[in-house]
């Protein structure tokens, strides 16, 4: 134990300059906590980080003074003599109630120098029992006696846990019976990475009984502490009660008490404890402990941030995308199949639609002829929806009375959705997620976007796909390229001009016969000849049109299916493929944010490390 007092001239209180840095860290941490998180933050992790934010706040407040206060908290089971120890330290000033009833202390007692204004104390301490003193040697040290940690009164434990975060040094008080108790030991293990620990083995007189078996409690304790990484812990063996008795005897004037209690067992170290508290913990040590406390806090913060750091999924998301494209291709094919099957009952309507579209390019007689012909040909399909009782099928689409492509495709997509596609898009989401899981993509972040995509309004999209595919097929048929285009243009031109010319020619011929031919005695049917000629020409052209521009459903179908499939594939890819990358991107953002936070933490820690002073405090921290 170093007792020398180093005379150091320091210009600026180093620790004080830490305060703004810590405050800034706290703010950043809280902002991050309040923000949205794509990567799930477990309840435990959140609680840990919030606790750390509170600690940062507390530390920054604590350090933002010229000389920070060192808070020493006594911790131990009921009856081990925490209050007696404090009373012995306080001398004549009887502070804490010590008695044989368990548990004794119900409220923490704060023993502090009278020059400290109570409002400088941490809020957790302000509402405890305050006991000011005037001992100069303890001027910047606050000693807190706490309730027990092991009695049936659980409220006491809560009070202790409320005070504990304030502690710079925990003075772990054990007795012969309790130095080994699980509850206290667990608390020590939980706190050891966060604060300095010193140990008091009170009731030392009971530990020194000679016995042939067993290890002496202090050795036992030292052994356990060594196994926890405390090579050379600060341990004091005390008989606090004897010192309290001495003070009482002195006060009542009984006999002539000496400076030390009589019959102290060998190795009693209460005086050492007082010495350590008064001189051993010099300003140098206090600053070092404070600095160490901050660096421990920063270390745990860094560790906690590591724990919540989302994984890097760049490779995984690429693999997932690759694996998905096969599934999406298959899916597009089978959805196209279902959609085309749904269109099957309406092939006449579609043919009709195509016929109407193509006849627009013809004019005059040809157009009139084709119109009449189509109207007659498709009279059944236009009539059937107007006749009641014919639509007995269960899943026919309710087609509109007036032909309307948008309405029609929507109705078809509705039917397909009801029949199969809704269930399929749900199944697709599962399928993709299973595949992503196989590529070790964490489903916790992927499930939601994928399932939401599965719940999109696919019917609308399918209807749109159908319309577009129909349009494209139609365009392909009506505006082909290359030789067929030439043939078609030629055919249209011929079909537009030849019938009227034929009609004219035959009419002229007929007139010529009537007026100029001799011996021409036409029957009534002969007058119809021009019309017959026209009809024949028109029929010939119709046959030509049917050959060169076929519009029958079986011819369109496969073309149509190909288009629908292609469209669906690109649609599915457009919607699903970016999801893994998006998620990865969002996580990368979070990683970046967290890394920035960690960078700040490291910065403060480095700054602190550069200024860390050599002081004899290492023994109070395990490795």
């Amino acid at each position: 134990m170093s007792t020398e007092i180093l005379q150091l001239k320091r210009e600026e209180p180093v620790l004080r300059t830490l305060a703004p840095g810590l405050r800034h860290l706290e703010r950043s941490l809280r902002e991050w906590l309040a923000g949205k998180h794509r990567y799930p933050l477990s309840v435990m992790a959140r609680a840990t980080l919030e606790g750390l934010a509170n600690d940062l706040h507390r530390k920054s407040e604590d350090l933002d003074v010229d000389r920070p206060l060192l808070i020493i908290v006594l911790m131990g089971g009921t009856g081990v003599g925490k209050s007696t120890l404090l009373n012995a330290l306080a001398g004549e000033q009887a502070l804490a109630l010590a008695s044989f009833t368990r548990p004794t202390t119900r409220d923490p007692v704060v023993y502090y120098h009278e020059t400290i204004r109570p409002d400088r104390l941490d809020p957790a301490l302000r509402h405890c029992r305050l006991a000011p003193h005037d001992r100069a040697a303890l001027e910047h040290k606050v000693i807190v006696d706490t309730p027990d940690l092991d009695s049936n009164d659980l409220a006491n434990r809560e009070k202790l846990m409320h005070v504990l975060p304030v502690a710079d040094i925990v003075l772990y008080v054990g007795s012969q019976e309790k130095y080994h108790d699980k509850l206290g030991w667990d608390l020590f293990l939980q706190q050891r990475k966060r604060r300095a620990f010193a140990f008091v083995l009170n009731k030392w007189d009971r530990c020194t009984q000679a016995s042939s078996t067993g290890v002496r409690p202090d050795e036992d304790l030292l052994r356990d502490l060594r196994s926890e990484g405390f090579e050379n812990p600060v341990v004091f063996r005390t008989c606090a009660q004897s010192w309290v008795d001495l003070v009482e005897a002195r006060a009542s004037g009984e006999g002539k008490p000496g400076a030390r209690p009589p019959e102290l067992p060998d190795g009693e170290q209460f005086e050492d404890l007082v010495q350590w508290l008064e001189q051993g913990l010099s300003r140098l040590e206090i600053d070092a402990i404070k600095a160490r406390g901050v660096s421990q806090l920063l270390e745990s913060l860094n560790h906690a941030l590591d724990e919540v750091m989302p994984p890097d999924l760049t490779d995984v998301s690429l693999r997932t995308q690759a694996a998905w494209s096969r599934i999406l291709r298959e899916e597009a094919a089978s959805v196209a199949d279902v959609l085309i099957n749904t269109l099957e009952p309406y092939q006449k309507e579609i043919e009709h639609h195509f016929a109407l579209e193509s006849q627009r390019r013809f004019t005059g007689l040809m157009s009139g002829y084709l119109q009449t012909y189509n109207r007659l040909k498709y009279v059944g399909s236009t009539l059937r929806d107007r006749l009641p009782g014919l639509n007995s099928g269960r899943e026919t689409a309710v087609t509109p009375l007036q032909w309307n492509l948008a309405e029609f495709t929507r109705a078809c997509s509705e039917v397909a959705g009801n029949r199969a596609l809704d269930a399929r898009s749900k199944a697709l989401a599962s399928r993709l997620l299973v595949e992503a899981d196989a590529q070790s993509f964490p489903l916790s972040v992927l499930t939601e976007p994928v399932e939401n995509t599965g719940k999109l309004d696919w019917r609308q999209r399918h209807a749109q796909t159908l319309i577009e595919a129909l349009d494209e097929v139609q365009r392909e048929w009506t505006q082909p390229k290359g030789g067929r285009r030439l043939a078609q243009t030629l055919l249209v031109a011929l079909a537009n001009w030849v019938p009227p010319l034929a009609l004219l020619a035959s009419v002229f011929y007929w007139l010529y016969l009537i007026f100029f031919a001799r011996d021409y005695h036409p029957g009534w049917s002969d007058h119809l000849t021009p019309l017959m000629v026209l009809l024949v020409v028109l029929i010939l052209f119709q046959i030509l049109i049917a050959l060169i521009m076929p519009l029958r459903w079986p011819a369109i179908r496969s073309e149509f299916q190909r288009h629908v499939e292609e469209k669906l594939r690109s649609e599915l890819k457009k919607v699903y493929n970016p999801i893994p990358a998006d998620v990865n991107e969002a996580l990368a953002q979070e990683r970046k944010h967290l890394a920035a936070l960690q960078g700040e933490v490291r910065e403060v820690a480095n700054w602190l490390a550069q200024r860390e002073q050599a002081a004899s405090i290492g023994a109070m921290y395990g490795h």
Partner: protein
Amino acid sequence: MDQLSQRALTSQLAEDLTWLEEHSRHRTRESTLGTVEQAVQTSELRLAAALVRNCIGPALDRQPAMPLHIAVIGGAGAGKSTIANLLLGTVSAEANPQAGFTRHPIVYTTATGALNWAGHLGFLGPLQRAPQPMPSSIDADIYQVRRVPPDPTGFELLRDAVVWDCPDMTTWAAMTASTHDGKNGQGYLARLIEVTALADVLVYVTSDERYNDEVPTQFLYLLLQTGKPVIVCLTKMKEAHAEPMLDHFRKEVLRHLPPGVVNCLAVPYLTADQRQDPIHQAARYRIPLLNQVGVLTHAPVRARRRTLVGALGYLQRSHERLLAVARHDVTALENWRALVQRGEGDYNQRYQQEYLCSERFRGFDEALVRLMDLLELPGVGKPISGVLWLARTPYRLLRTAIGKALSRPEGLGLPELPVLEQALTGWIDQLRKEAARQAATHQLWAHVANGFASAGLADQIRDRFQQGYRTYQMSLSTETERTARAIYEQLEQRPAMLNTLRGVKFGIDALAIMAALMAPGPLWSDLLLVPVATSVSHQLVELLGKGYVDSQRELTRQRQMGLLTENISGPLADWLAKWPATGGSPFERLQTALRRIPPALEQLHTLIHPSRETN
């Protein structure tokens, strides 16, 4: 029930409880939340198993009541060994200041004391008797027997009883593996529980520091529920504080505990001399203690019976709480079942919508034709039928033309097997996804996910589907064909009805023709009306027949759905729901334990209280 099956009953029950305890401990290690409650639960399960092993088992086995077991228990450093020495009248137990020195139970008996009690199978569970004397600080699953000289003062406590000096329950080594020489991962608390379960009388030692501590009090609370009588020794206080401290203990601690504490005694801090000579120097503390114990042990058979009844009572009262260990597992299993059932619903629905709705059952169209043929007149009536058929020719042609123009081509449905297979893939994927997603939340999901990943669960499901599909197809083909054929076969088998229907149809035709002929107007138009009339009547009959056939078709559809659930989806869902709890998985064991424990307790009840049976 004979001796052998009784033994099987108790050993099985103890085994089940031990398994649950292991399970609970395993979970405690996995989770970080609520460890205190889980530790208590684990201790309770251990106590229950130990009661069955050490108390109920030997009693049912007709082991003699004597010797009774007196166990000295308490927190570390409270003075258990000192109190044991007071009971024994010699300095036999090692009393030393190291907390948690004693690591295994030690039983004290006289030089001639019989150890017949140790012969019962499974007695003291994992604890083995130490082969030779050794220090009590050996941390192993053993107990040792120490012989002490007879008591010179004439108290013959050890004539009827043995005294157990137990380890503590407060130091961390009691509940966690020792860091120095730890091989045993559970700490030595289990050993303490094993012995306390055996005890007929408990001496609970607690010191002036400990008497209001949580951990020993909880332990006392647990033991009081087993109905064992407890003598409390408060130790180490100053002589003057003895009475107020006893009062305080009664008021602060005992008042909140169930009854069962027989008496509280104070044993103040003993000087070294007193400790060294318990018979003479500490007689004033020893004699009241021996008196208390003597009262409780002087009728061994009754005392043993009290222990037995108490143990059974504890098991019965707490068994629901004990089984609650498995609550999380049972919930997880229920969630899994719900998921499987949802999947089954989706599966059936997909089959219905993607296949069954658009299935036309061609056989029925054929059946309609056959039905109409049947209704034509046979034999002598044949020419008339032929004439009418000829008369209907224009109608037939017209109908075909109209039908062709108006009919819509059918939508192509998907074939059945691909629909079923795709729906099955959907079902499997859903289960897989859910298992992968929730794998971190509970072991069961992890188990299922692992089943998919490495145990080939998906393939097993597909195999089962194939099996189900074969039987389904077999029953299906007969079913559909039979229904379609039944439509006309039923009529064929009932000539009376068939002929009536034929008669009716012919009657309608005849009526129509008559009406047409009777109608006023020129003859040729009347003749034209004849085919019209017969066509109308024919159409009418056909509509009726079609209605009937369609209703049969609908019925068949429903029956086919029923066949599917019966042969494919139903058995598959059952198998899947049970899957996590089969094949030797922990969940199977868990379910077995949960199923077996309540009836076993009831059986024990009838064995221990046979009088209730005769009432």
